[in-house]
């Protein structure tokens, strides 16, 4: 079992539609940037892990076509899809591949091209025996869980809107982010079209075309290849039961995220996450979810999430900046979204986050969230 660090990241400009590249070329763009960031060539890469929700683009075994874009010819290529957690699952798989001692350098690439697909129909292809008869879409399902969370915790639409504003303001300093909304305000979020009570259009993530890559190196290679690698300190996955109604107050309890965070903190020795963690990139598909994740991740006591955003604790200049990149609320190519969380956390630890750099970030948290209340937690640090 080896220690492993990320030595390079790369991503595309995320946008509504990338007509100028195929999926394979999109993946190559992120791959090439990650290789350049790591200062290596594709020939140095021992194995590749890919992440994509192929049903959204009508593909089967998408690694067959797109693997070439990640330089996968005659290399060990593995493709993983676990809904929203696909990207973080692939990152954890890549970490395991490297830590196993089998491979020295592992490339992970996630991508999605929603502009090519039938995302909404794809999402409607749920359990044919049950869910298809009572469908309300991803937004409707979130809204149901949110109503319980709001009722129990008393968070307000204004507090959720503050999360949405924070994300888009941060995105304005991230050249790769999809949504660039100048002058977004709480009022504009609350005035935007209602999708499903209490979710307004601007509370919700977009659908993006984009790809993102990270490159791992094992302990004997990483320090030679990178002056300030981001070491993986913990990587934990938790899955839960399938139906939305199986889970007691899903967003309130969010036991997968609580359990994964608890185990990850234990491995790293974190006892006071808000104080000890320098920056977090968490998978928040909707503004309210970020508030719920604050509690599940132990950033605050139960019922205190609203105060956290009110007090600016999670703003760029706060005690624990959350999603300096703009998060999923600003950029969401699903298969890449989890990889972007890890890449952005890595960039912070490496000091390569540019205009959205959190000063002297040394300990970073990344999470993944999947539709069945699945959670991944990854912790990275300078040492």
């Amino acid at each position: 079992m080896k220690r492993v660090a990320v030595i390079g990241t790369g991503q595309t400009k995320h946008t509504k539609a990338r007509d100028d590249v195929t999926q394979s070329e999109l993946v190559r763009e992120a791959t090439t940037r990650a290789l350049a960031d790591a200062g290596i060539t594709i020939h140095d890469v021992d194995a590749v892990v890919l992440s994509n929700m192929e049903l959204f683009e009508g593909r089967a075994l998408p690694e067959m076509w797109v693997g070439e874009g990640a330089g996968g010819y005659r290399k060990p290529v593995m493709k993983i899809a676990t809904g929203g957690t696909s990207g973080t699952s692939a990152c954890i798989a890549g970490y395991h591949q490297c830590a196993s001692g089998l491979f020295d350098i592992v490339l992970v690439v996630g991508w999605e091209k929603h502009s090519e697909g039938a995302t909404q129909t794809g999402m409607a292809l749920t359990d044919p025996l049950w869910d298809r008869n009572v469908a309300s879409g991803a937004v409707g399902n979130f809204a149901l869980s949110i109503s319980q969370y709001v009722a129990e915790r008393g968070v307000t639409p204004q507090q959720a809107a503050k999360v949405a504003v924070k994300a888009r303001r941060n995105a304005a300093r991230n050249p790769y982010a999809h949504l660039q909304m100048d002058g977004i305000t709480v009022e504009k979020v609350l005035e935007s079209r209602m999708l499903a009570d209490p979710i307004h259009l601007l509370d919700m993530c977009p659908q993006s075309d984009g790809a993102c890559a990270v490159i791992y190196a094992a302990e004997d290679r990483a320090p030679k290849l990178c002056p300030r690698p981001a070491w993986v300190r913990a990587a934990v996955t938790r899955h839960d039961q399938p139906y939305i109604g199986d889970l007691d107050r899903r967003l309130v309890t969010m036991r997968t995220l609580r359990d994964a965070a608890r185990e990850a903190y234990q491995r790293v020795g974190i006892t006071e996450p808000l104080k000890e963690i320098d920056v977090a990139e968490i998978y928040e598909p909707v503004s309210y979810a970020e508030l719920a994740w604050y509690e599940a991740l132990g950033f605050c006591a139960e019922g205190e999430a609203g105060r956290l955003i009110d007090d600016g604790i999670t703003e760029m200049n706060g005690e624990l900046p959350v999603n300096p990149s703009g998060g999923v609320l600003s950029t969401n190519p699903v298969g890449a979204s989890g990889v972007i969380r890890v890449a952005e956390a890595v960039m912070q630890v490496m000091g390569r986050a540019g205009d959205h750099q959190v000063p002297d970030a040394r300990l970073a948290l990344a999470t993944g969230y999947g539709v069945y209340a699945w959670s991944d937690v990854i912790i990275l640090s300078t040492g």
Partner: protein
Amino acid sequence: MTELLRVSHTMTLSWRYGTSWYFAEFIRALRDERRLLGLRCPVCRRVYLPPRPVCGNCYAELREWVEVKDSGTVRAFTIVHTPIIDPTSGQLRPTPYGMALIQLDGADTTLNHYLAESNPAKIRIGMRVQAVWREERRGTLSDIVHFVEMNNQTMNDEQ
């Protein structure tokens, strides 16, 4: 700049899903007897709806059928304003409509289903609701049209 092309595909697919003993029995009771059945876990005693062969928490086999009432309590709700494609018809479902997680009397899980009411001011968590059944049942969850608040008026609805 080069003209950029897109290549289109339309795919027509059909599937044939096996329902297995537990779902077939659930549908049979719903269609033929207008009864809702759940399965009880022998270990944690949770009553599951939808029925399934194993308890996700205990990994115990589920065999004990339990009748669940068609009335229950709203545990979560929303009004959906953005149209989605209804998987049963392929058409956009007209909006707005109410949606809820309903804990049916006798079940430990909640059922996601439609509400007749689409004014959020008239819905609350904890509200008691009653299923409104389609007159001719076909054997799907859609045989329950939606749920309405339990009151005197409910009794006159298609009962």
